[in-house]
């Protein structure tokens, strides 16, 4: 029998279209998410909820401020667009932790939970009598996960500074050396864009939340072996810093402070964005033969002497990169992005060094990305049919799994939408009790 092609075989097993027919990896886990003014916590609990964890998302009665952090102040059916994407699969309850009675309710929920996520300033949960030291007495198996700007200990943990994403990016070190270079002889007044530049998305928050998800899952594995819970501590600044690859070693070894290098790459050649007739492409050739193939693809094999090149390191110094970038950009500017992408694909089939070929990729707007058939086919932009918000597009199915795929059941919930169900399910509170608690401002 002819063996089925790998890509067909695996697609039959991990296509997001059949995700709902499969089991969920975390469907025996209950997570209490108390995130406040922090997208990091919300993102973290989303990653667990996508795998089937039952996430009880507790907000103050007026809703978390993060719901109002939305581009240009736009609301969709009353909801901010970031939160609309990150309320996924969670049950939303209200709980006013300023009130002692609410803290007792929290303790009852903790007794029945596996994971607690919180993002308050360090010390506040202790002041409320619901810090880890107290809660572990109630539930020794609890995994208590704190995400803050500077972490739970160390001299700066006492800071009261709110930890917004742009602050994380600034302190991480990763904004400082990112951005366009100031052209020689120019000033910031003339080029206000040639400054340390942060990334557009909330990457500081997202990285912190993702690290915490990894920590929680490692702690869950440990708990399976030992029945022991523990406290976890992520400083968002450290989390984002740790994505940096070489600057700290360079500074220690050579005393060099990494500075902005625009669309080139201090870490090596060929690795840059290059201008084209209609936009830009990414060029990647991190092996000598790929750089040679790129020169050949442009018809510059002889003129540039590519046959005699011996070591990519010869091209990777600052001066050489600037020199070669000028030559390369002059060539790429003659073509459209699409032409260059095609040239690389064809070179990989018929070129002198084939199958070796450089990486050439278009630089797309998110609008183009969202229309791209490849991604639509792979299910990342499949609209979610939400019972409250209707059809909504959020990025989903970011990894494909053969046995326990993730899924998005709903995108979001209004504030307190699940109070009735969750308080009944976990604490046996019926309508009369809920009404009283609501009147007392507890939920």
């Amino acid at each position, binding site marked *: 029998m002819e063996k089925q092609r790998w890509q067909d075989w695996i697609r039959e097993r991990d296509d997001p279209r059949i995700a709902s027919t499969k089991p969920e990896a975390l469907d025996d886990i209950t997570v209490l998410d108390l995130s406040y003014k922090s997208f990091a916590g919300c993102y973290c609990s989303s990653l667990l909820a996508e795998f089937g964890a039952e996430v009880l998302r507790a907000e103050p009665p007026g809703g978390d*401020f993060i719901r109002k952090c939305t581009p240009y102040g736009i609301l969709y059916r009353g909801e901010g667009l970031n939160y609309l994407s990150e309320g996924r699969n969670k049950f939303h309850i209200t709980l006013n932790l300023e009130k002692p009675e609410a803290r007792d309710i929290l303790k009852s929920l903790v007794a029945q939970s596996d994971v607690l996520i919180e993002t308050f300033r360090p010390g506040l949960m202790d002041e409320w009598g619901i810090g880890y030291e107290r809660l572990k007495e109630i539930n020794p198996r609890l995994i208590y996960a704190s995400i803050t700007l500077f972490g739970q200990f160390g001299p700066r943990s006492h800071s009261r500074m709110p930890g917004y994403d742009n602050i994380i990016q600034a302190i991480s070190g990763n904004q400082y050396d990112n951005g366009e270079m100031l052209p020689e002889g120019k000033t910031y007044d003339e080029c206000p864009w040639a400054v340390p530049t942060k990334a557009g998305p909330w990457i500081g928050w997202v990285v912190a939340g993702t690290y915490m998800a990894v920590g929680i899952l490692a702690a869950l594995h440990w708990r399976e072996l030992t029945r022991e819970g523990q406290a976890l501590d992520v400083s968002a600044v450290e989390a984002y810093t740790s994505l940096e690859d070489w600057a700290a070693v360079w500074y220690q070894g050579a005393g060099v402070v990494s500075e902005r290098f625009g669309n080139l790459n201090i870490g090596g050649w060929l690795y840059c964005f290059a201008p084209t007739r209609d936009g830009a492409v990414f060029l990647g050739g991190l092996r000598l033969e790929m750089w040679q193939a790129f020169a050949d693809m442009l018809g510059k094999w002889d003129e540039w002497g590519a046959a005699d090149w011996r070591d990519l390191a010869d091209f990777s110094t600052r001066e050489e990169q600037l020199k070669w970038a000028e030559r390369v950009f002059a060539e790429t500017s003659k073509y459209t992005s699409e032409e260059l992408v095609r040239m690389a694909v064809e070179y990989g089939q018929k070129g002198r060094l084939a199958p070796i070929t450089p990486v050439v990729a278009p630089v797309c707007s998110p609008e183009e990305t969202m229309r791209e058939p490849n991604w639509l086919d792979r299910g990342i932009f499949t609209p979610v049919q939400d019972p409250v918000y209707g059809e909504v597009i959020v990025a989903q199915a970011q990894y494909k799994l053969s046995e326990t795929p993730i899924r998005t059941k709903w995108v979001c919930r209004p504030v307190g939408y699940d109070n009735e169900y969750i308080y009944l399910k976990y604490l046996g509170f019926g309508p009369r009790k809920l009404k009283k608690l609501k009147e007392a401002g507890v939920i």
Partner: protein
Amino acid sequence: MAEYSWESYKETKFSKPLPLKGIRVLEVCTLVLGPSGPGFLARLGAEVIKCEVPPMGDTLRSMAPFSYFFKDQSTSLIRPNPNKYWVGLDLHKPEGQQLFLELAAKADIIEENLRPGVMERWNVGYRQISAINPGIIYISKTGFGQWGQYAEENRPSNDGAAQGMSGYAWISRFPGRPPLKNRLYVCDSYGALLGEVAVLAALYYRDRTGKGQYIELSQSEAIMRTMSWVWPYQQITGQGAEPAGNRDVSICPADTFRCADDTFVAIAAPDEEEFRGLCLAMGRPELAEDPRFADHLTRLQEENALEILQIIAEWARTRTAEEIERLAEEYGFAASRVYSIKDVVESEHSRARGFLAEVDDPLLGEFLDYEFPVMMSRTSPRVRWSVRPVGFDNEYVMKYILGKSEDEIRQLYQCGALGKWAQVRGRRPPPDWDGKAGLILSRE
């Protein structure tokens, strides 16, 4: 006190167990997207065996900032590769493939980042491995996943390609300027991190059921997942998301400002108290009462946001970053200088927490590495040792893990299934290596 659980955390790290103790990982990975994932697991205590094709090994071994090599080692290789065992294994050879299968039979997790189908061609794909070890968790990390048009075209990818194709770079720049590639290999590092969420969820599922599984991760899809508002915004408004420089379009005010001394400070003051505090600090209390800035949703509206950010920018130009940091502390909003790598490495706070970890490596000597940034009170992750030349731990892995005899090992070298480093910078040991330091077995 919260600090109780964290008392002496840094000092007591090594008297605690590691959370992934006893988990064995095989990696066939190059560059950053691949090796970083097992690198995270290695910090959490998994035993990671890194297989490289001898004698040149991982392509990342060639990469270094402006060609600066740290003791002859690639500066970039260090971060993704702590605590690993280094095997020079040639998977092109049948004997090498057989060796890999022997290791796979004893492994819990396999990670690879070659083009789709290559591992299967080498007889070590998921179908072949799961037949001998059904509990295996097997992750493939690529630019475009295992199926779909781009995978069919066998397109290569890099971090920069994913930054370009996802739209991440397009919105991370100043309006009217060309798209800006982020200086981090963010799609590599983040893709790898996100991949471990799936790997560890699969491990938890295996703890419960004994079942393994296959996972595919596309680094482009991983980074798209981080771009939260962008997708519903485009669907709902019918417009493309636009770049906004250092301004956060979802939080107002939140931006980076130029100070009197030409340094830069990031400021954020979106909630009502923080905003009032900022207005007071600027000596402009009336702004807090201004209807254009009445509440957060109002401030976020384009015209109002540009207005208030302009006012703050003019004020910041008359102050130093330090003055603004002090005022933020006093008035209760957020402000910080933009830190350089020098500030990061010299941070006393990170030292005190042990995030900056002192590694005393037998080959590389003493240096600071970043510790895994999740501090775990009972099972502290940690860096123990650093990078090694290609094939450095062959003998240890063959003898201790696979129980091979000296004769068998010799044959494996002879047929080329095993090999060691080339005498090339980035592959060979540091120049001051004494021929023994760091070797576990066979030091004579």
